[in-house]
C-alpha cells in the first residue's frame, strides 16, 4: 500500500488510544462525569486531591474496562493500581492513579475490516487530568503569562489501549482507530467522540528499511485531534525521520506535538522530570480480582462486534466484506439483515443503505424497505422513483405503496395514463363530447374506466389533470 514514503522504507506505528468512559460519575469519587459544565463545579475532596481524601473505584468503570478487554480478545486478570509520580498542575495529587505492571487487560488483538489483526499489548484503567487554559498573547503554552486550571475532568475514568507496533500503513492506523470506535460504540462504554476528546490518539512512529528485523528509535506524536490529522502526522513524522537517516543523522527518542495549522510535528519541551515516574502500588486501593464467573458473565453480555457483524452480513448478502463494511460501521447491519430476510434483493438493500441512507434510517422500517425494493425489482418503480420514495419513508414512515401513490410515482406513469386516456376518448366519443360540454359527472366515468384498467394503481388526481388538459387541447 502506498504510504507516500520513499521507496525501501517501511513504516512502523503503534497507537496509544485514551478513551473516556461514559460512566455517570468519575473513577474514584461520586462527582458527575460530564463534558462542558462550568469550571470547577464537578469537584469534591477526592478529585481535588484535598489532604485526607481517599479514592474508591467506580464499579461501572471496572466493568466497562473488562468488557472492552474481552472485546479486544485480552486476558482479564488480577490487577493493581499504581501511582505515577510527576508534578503538573492539572493533576490534583501530583501523581496519577493508573495501572502499571499488572493492568486489567493484557495481550489481545483488534481485527481490522481488511482482515489484518493488530496486537493489543494492554488496556488499562487510569484517571484523566484536569484542563489548563493558557492566558496571554498567544493562547498557547509558550508565551503565555499564566494559566488557569479546571478540575472538572480530573478523575474521569479512562482506558488506555496500547497496541503493539504492528501497524504498517497510514490507512491501517486510521482503520484501527475507526474499528476501535466501532467496538466502543457497540459496547456503549463511551461516546467515542474524537472532536470532544473522548478518544485521544498518540502515535508511536518509527521507520526502517524494508527487510530489517530490529525496530529503530520511535517518536511519540501527541495532539492528534482527527483521523485526518492522524494520517498527516504519521506521514510527516515518518518522512522527517527518513530525511534524518538519509542525512546520516539519528532521530532522538522524544515526544513530539502535531501542529495542525503548520502540518508538522515539533519536539515537546524539556522532559527531564518525566524520565522517572517512581511507580509504586497505590496503597489507598486494593487489587481487582475478577473470578471466572464474573468473566463469564462479561463474555455472555457482550454485543457482537464489527468484525463478526461484517462476516455475518457479508455471508447473508453473499457479497465481499469490503462492500458491506460501511453499513456495519454505521450500525445498519441488523436492519440490512432483517430487510434481506424479508425477501429483498441483497444487492439492492446494500446499494440503498450505502448510497441513499447515509444520514440515518429515520422512520423507515425493514418491512417497508423490503416492499420498496420489491416494487423496484418488479419495475413498478424506477430506481429514481424508488430513491424518492425512500427519502419520504425515512422522513414520514408509512408503506411505500402509499407514499408512491402520494407522489404519483407508480410504475403506471403519466405517459401510460395518457395513452390509456387517449384510447378512452376514441372508444367513447359521446361521453367525451358531454364531458367537453361541461357535464362534470361524466368525469367520474373516465376516472372509473382508467382505474378499472390499471386495477386501481393510477393516481386520481393525475387522471383528472390529464382529462382537463385534453379539453383545452
Amino acid at each position, binding site marked *: 500500500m502506498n504510504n507516500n514514503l520513499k521507496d525501501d522504507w517501511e513504516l512502523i506505528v503503534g497507537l496509544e488510544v485514551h478513551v473516556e468512559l461514559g*460512566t*455517570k*460519575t468519575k473513577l474514584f*469519587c*461520586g*462527582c*458527575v462525569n460530564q463534558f462542558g459544565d*462550568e*469550571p*470547577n*463545579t*464537578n*469537584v*469534591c*475532596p477526592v478529585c*481535588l486531591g484535598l489532604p485526607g481524601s481517599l479514592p*474508591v*473505584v*467506580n*464499579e*461501572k*468503570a*471496572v466493568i466497562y474496562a473488562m468488557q472492552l478487554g474481552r472485546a479486544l480478545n485480552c486476558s482479564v486478570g488480577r490487577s*493493581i493500581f499504581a501511582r505515577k509520580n*510527576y*508534578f*503538573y*498542575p492539572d493533576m490534583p495529587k501530583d501523581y496519577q492513579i493508573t495501572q502499571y505492571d499488572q493492568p486489567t487487560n493484557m495481550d489481545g488483538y483488534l481485527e481490522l475490516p481488511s482482515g489484518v489483526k493488530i496486537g493489543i499489548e494492554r488496556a488499562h484503567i487510569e484517571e484523566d*487530568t484536569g484542563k*489548563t*487554559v*493558557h*492566558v*496571554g498573547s498567544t493562547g498557547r*503554552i509558550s508565551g*503565555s*503569562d*499564566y*494559566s*488557569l*486550571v*479546571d*478540575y472538572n475532568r480530573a478523575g474521569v475514568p479512562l482506558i488506555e489501549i496500547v497496541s503493539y507496533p504492528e501497524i504498517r500503513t497510514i490507512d491501517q492506523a486510521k482503520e484501527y482507530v475507526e474499528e476501535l470506535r466501532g467496538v466502543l460504540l457497540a459496547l456503549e462504554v463511551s461516546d467515542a467522540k474524537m472532536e470532544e476528546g473522548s478518544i485521544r490518539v498518540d502515535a508511536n512512529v518509527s521507520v526502517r528499511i524494508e527487510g530489517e528485523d530490529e525496530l529503530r528509535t520511535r517518536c511519540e506524536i501527541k495532539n492528534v485531534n482527527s483521523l485526518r490529522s492522524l494520517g498527516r502526522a504519521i506521514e510527516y513524522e515518518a518522512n522527517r525521520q527518513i530525511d534524518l537517516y538519509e542525512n546520516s543523522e539519528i532521530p532522538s527518542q522524544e*515526544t513530539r*506535538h502535531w501542529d495542525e495549522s503548520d502540518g508538522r510535528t515539533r519536539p*515537546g*519541551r*524539556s*522532559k527531564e*522530570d*518525566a524520565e*522517572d515516574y517512581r511507580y509504586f*502500588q497505590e*496503597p489507598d*486501593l*486494593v*487489587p*481487582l*480480582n*475478577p473470578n471466572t464467573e464474573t468473566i463469564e458473565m462479561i463474555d455472555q453480555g457482550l454485543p457482537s462486534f464489527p468484525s463478526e457483524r461484517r462476516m455475518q452480513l457479508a455471508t447473508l448478502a453473499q457479497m465481499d466484506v469490503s462492500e458491506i463494511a460501511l453499513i456495519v460501521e454505521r450500525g445498519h447491519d441488523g436492519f440490512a439483515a432483517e430487510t434481506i430476510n424479508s425477501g429483498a434483493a441483497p444487492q439492492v438493500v446494500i446499494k440503498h443503505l450505502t448510497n441513499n441512507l447515509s444520514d440515518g434510517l429515520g422512520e423507515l422500517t425493514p418491512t417497508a424497505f423490503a416492499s420498496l425494493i420489491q416494487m423496484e425489482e418488479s419495475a413498478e418503480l424506477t430506481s429514481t422513483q424508488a430513491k424518492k420514495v425512500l427519502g419520504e419513508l425515512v422522513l414520514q414512515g408509512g408503506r411505500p405503496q402509499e407514499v408512491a401513490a402520494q407522489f404519483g410515482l407508480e410504475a403506471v406513469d403519466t405517459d401510460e395514463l395518457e395513452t390509456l386516456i387517449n384510447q378512452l376518448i376514441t372508444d367513447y366519443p359521446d361521453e367525451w363530447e358531454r364531458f367537453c360540454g361541461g357535464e362534470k359527472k361524466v368525469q367520474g366515468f373516465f376516472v372509473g374506466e382508467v382505474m378499472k384498467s390499471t386495477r386501481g394503481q393510477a393516481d386520481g388526481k393525475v387522471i383528472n389533470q390529464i382529462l382537463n388538459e385534453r379539453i383545452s387541447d
Partner: protein
Amino acid sequence: MTEPISEEEVAHVAHLARLRLSDQELEIFTRQLGAVLEHAKDVEALQLDGIEPMSHPFPLENVTREDEVGEMLEREKVLDQAPAAEDGRFQVPQILGEQP
C-alpha cells in the same frame, strides 16, 4: 568505602521532589540520608528471592462503589482556599514544559 548516596544523587532527588537545597543543606542531607541508607544495607543484603512483596497489611480485594452521584463541593468554597483564582479556575504562574 563508597558513600551510599552522593551529593549529585541528593540534588537530583531534590529536583524530582521540587525542593531547593543550599550547598550547606546539600552536604548535611547527603550525610544524613547516607546514614539511613547505610543502616538499610542489612535489608539490601538480605536474600529474599521467591518472597512475595507485601504492599497492603490487610488482604482485601475488589472494593468498589456504585456508579452513583455523590456530594460535590461548592465552587466558591473550593476557590476560597486557593492561593490564587480567576474566572472560576485556579491560577498558576507561567508553565514552562508540557505535561509529560
